């Protein structure tokens, strides 16, 4: 795993070194071009604020009131019976949110990371789960909606199946690597 960490350490500096240099050698006005793109990024970040706040309010009210506790307590016996580690239950809200809304999932992940600490088991698991960015329902609604597709056929099935596999794989690998 240290090899991967090493790649991760070098990846971003490498991109920052290589892309602007390559652009300059190909006669691209690098600074102006960077600013143009950055403006877009900034605008996108501003555009997601309403989604982020909307989701966070609902999630925080739900979790801090103890409603989530109720659900988790309700699920606990079933979890124990299946032989899972009960601490995994803290990830339930994120697992439920991830296919629904990217910004919502980011909200839940942020909340879990700040609550349990980024280097806790739950923090790492939340980070790994959040790692893949696009969310099934959002992409379905936005992409298909934009071109007027009304019949989704088997698209949702495939998307949700992939989400489920991602969840199981995340739990397995985080347990394996970080214990």
């Amino acid at each position, binding site marked *: 795993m240290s090899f991967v*960490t090493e*790649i*991760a350490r070098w990846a*971003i500096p490498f*991109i920052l070194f290589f*892309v602007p240099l*390559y*652009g300059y050698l190909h006669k*691209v006005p*690098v600074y102006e*071009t960077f*600013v143009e*793109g*950055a403006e*877009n*990024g900034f605008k*996108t*970040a*501003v555009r997601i*604020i309403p989604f*982020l706040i*909307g989701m966070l*309010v*609902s*999630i925080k*009210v*739900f979790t*801090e*009131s*103890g*409603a989530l506790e*109720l659900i988790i307590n309700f699920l606990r016996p079933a979890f124990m019976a299946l032989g899972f580690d009960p601490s995994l239950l803290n990830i339930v809200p994120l697992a439920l949110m991830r296919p*629904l809304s*990217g910004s*919502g999932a980011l909200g839940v992940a942020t909340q879990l990371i700040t609550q349990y600490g*980024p280097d806790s088991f739950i*923090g*790492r698991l939340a*980070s*790994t789960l*959040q*790692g*893949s*960015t*696009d969310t099934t*329902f959002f992409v379905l609604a936005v*992409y*298909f909606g934009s*071109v*007027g*597709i009304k019949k989704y*056929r088997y*698209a949702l099935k495939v*998307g949700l199946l*992939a*989400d489920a596999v*991602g969840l199981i*794989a*995340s739990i397995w*690998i985080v347990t394996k690597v970080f214990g």
Partner: protein
Amino acid sequence: MVNLIWLIMLLCGILVAAANGTIDQVTESALNAAELGIEVAIQLMGVMALWLGIMHIAEKAGLIQSLSKFCAPAVRRLFPSLKADSPAFGPIIMNLCANILGLGNAATPFGLKAMQELQKENTEPDTASPAMITFLALNTSCITIIPATIIAVRMKAGSANPVEIIGTTIFATGCAMTAAIIADSFFRRRKKR
């Protein structure tokens, strides 16, 4: 769907708080959440501006196009229904690359463009074509090499090693993507019969 879930979470939370006699908690949670939303967004603004700035240079320099050419053979195999010179491949590959680099929000414009191109080749305008579903499956489960957003969140939370989750993310998204590709081709074949 999202509407209903949002509403249920909010109402359940308030009802449970009322039942527990901690109704003040609701006010505090809601206000804190609004503040947290802004904090997260400000953190993201910097990261997004940086990445999209760099991406824009790569695009202008023709790096993205070279990347498209390099990826084309592998991507073509996933879309048997598309012609080899289909104009949809450019935006599809850009979208997947943006996903691989963990730029979720940067991927969306390319994704929408790809959908428009796929719709031009679609024989039934109100029904998803096999190529569209394949694209969607790849999109929702794309392998991620640099989960930039979550690394930023971890930095903000004071992680000792914000990038340590890259390996686990690559593994988990790789599994999800494999599952998506297998499930997609399975359903596509079953529908044909």
